[in-house]
């Protein structure tokens, strides 16, 4: 396959960046969830 | 309208700090209310909220019949806030400052020299603010509030930084305001100075009105 280095770096940067961001979101979410009482954790609700 | 000020359960935040923590207050038109309390009680925030400058996190407030949350511009245009900051441009003269604020408030017709006379600042009209003393700047600031002809006066520590003559000027101004039928709220540590003029005393602590008493009711509408 031609351009293999470009292909790996192109796909690689996307997959790695998205995975890192996804894990960081999960980490942030875990840390924050612990600080909010269970009755306020209803997902996808509006509070206006 | 019956009440010049009607505040119910107001919460106002300074960043995340509840400077007002569910404060309620009703003031009739034409009254003079002394707001007293320790430093950090929320006096300044109360006055700023009444001026339409501090957003309500919770509760409601009407000032002169306008809702502070939905009609802040009308509130601001009808009140006169004298704050510890002089709100004057240092590089302009007293007269230029006064005429600028009069134009912005839509009061081009005001006699600026008369307003300066009232605070004994007429001789300094053409001096730049930067050349004046603290006391002189405060007097000029008072004149700026006066030319707005506010229906609600919000005076935050009006006597601070003034000499005896300056304090008399402030008192004279409060009397003028009462005579013109305006409502006055004075936040002050100088109880002796304001008490004789006040019709009501509101004691603020911990972001709420702790005690509200009527004193000297006869002075109202004098």
């Amino acid at each position, binding site marked *: *396959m*031609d*351009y293999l280095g*470009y*292909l790996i*770096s*192109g*796909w690689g*940067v*996307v*997959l790695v*960046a*998205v*995975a890192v*961001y*996804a*894990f960081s*979101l*999960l980490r942030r*979410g*875990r840390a*924050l*969830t*612990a*600080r*909010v*009482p269970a009755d*306020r*954790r209803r*997902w996808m609700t*509006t*509070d*206006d | 309208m019956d009440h010049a000020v009607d505040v119910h359960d107001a*919460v106002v*935040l300074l*960043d*995340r*700090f*509840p400077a007002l*923590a*569910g404060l309620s207050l009703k003031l009739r038109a034409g009254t003079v209310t002394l707001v*007293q*309390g*320790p*430093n950090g*009680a929320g006096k300044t925030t109360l006055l700023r909220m009444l001026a339409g400058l501090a*957003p309500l*996190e919770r509760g409601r407030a009407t000032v002169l019949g306008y809702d502070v949350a939905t009609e802040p511009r009308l509130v601001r245009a009808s009140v006169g806030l004298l704050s510890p900051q002089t709100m004057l441009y240092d590089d302009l003269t007293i007269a230029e400052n006064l005429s600028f604020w009069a134009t912005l408030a839509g009061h081009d017709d005001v006699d600026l020299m008369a307003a300066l006379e009232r605070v004994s600042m007429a001789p300094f009209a053409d001096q730049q603010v930067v050349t004046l003393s603290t006391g002189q700047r405060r007097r000029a600031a008072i004149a700026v509030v006066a030319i707005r002809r506010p229906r609600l006066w919000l005076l935050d*520590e009006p006597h*601070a930084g003034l000499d005896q003559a300056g304090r008399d000027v402030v008192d004279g101004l409060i009397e003028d305001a009462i005579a013109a039928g305006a409502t006055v709220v004075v936040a002050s*540590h100088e*109880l*002796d100075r304001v008490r004789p003029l006040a019709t009501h005393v509101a*004691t603020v*602590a*911990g*972001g*709420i009105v*702790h*005690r509200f008493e009527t004193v000297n009711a006869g002075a109202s509408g004098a």
Partner: protein
Amino acid sequence: MSTALSRPHVASTSSKLTLVLGVASLLGLAVLLVFSFVLTDPDQRVFERGADLEPLLTGQGDAVRLLYVHFPVAMVTYIAFTLNAIGSIAVLWKKSTWWDNTAAAAAEVGVLFCGLTLATGSIWGRPIWNTWWKWGDVRLMTTTILFLIFIGYLAYRRTMSDSRVRAKRSAVVGLIGAINIPIVYKSVDWWQNRTLHQQSTLRNRSVEDLTLFTMIFGMVVFMAIFAWLMVHRFRIGWLEHQTETVGLEAAIIERRAQTSAAISDAVTDSRSSAETGSD
């Protein structure tokens, strides 16, 4: 991400919805990789020079496999920033916390994907255009400016702690950023009056069915990934909002509790202040 998803009993921003989305995304990604690298052929079309065709004489060969990720990532970028604009309008219109949260989440995810769009585009450009970067290419320039504008937007959000002020002001910044995009596009278009980008690849009849399918399938997969990220990021914003309000309740109670304590000192305190005549 699967480890976290498989343990929903741990208190987290995960839910059944994100579990399904996450698993679907991972499966989709695996299938997309197979399509992109195994099932599709290298681009070996031969073009004849013509007014309506690219000046390319031959196809891109295997480099086309980069477009299977570049194209979906770019789509997600534009969808994210569109969502940010919609959220900004809703905030200014209705002062909605929900939309502010959505706008913030979309901007953050959007900046990530915008950066990836630029990176993959650049990596594709090196073998095909023979350069990492081409000044004057309309879409490259527009995307770069978009990236910079929204980095500024995210930085601006961080400068404000009052959530209400932050919502309104950042809505203004986001909207003006959005208004700029067509202007930037048009001005760069005039600037160089040329573009190196693939003009309407999808509409080109010579694109193979399988290539087309892989492109569209990639879009679907990345939309699922985008949705997963958005839901989690939204919930983080939501939780932050909740910690603020929880903190507020406590702060109000604490402040009011000080009242009676403060008032006993207050009388003496204010009297002594009166004597010194200072605040």
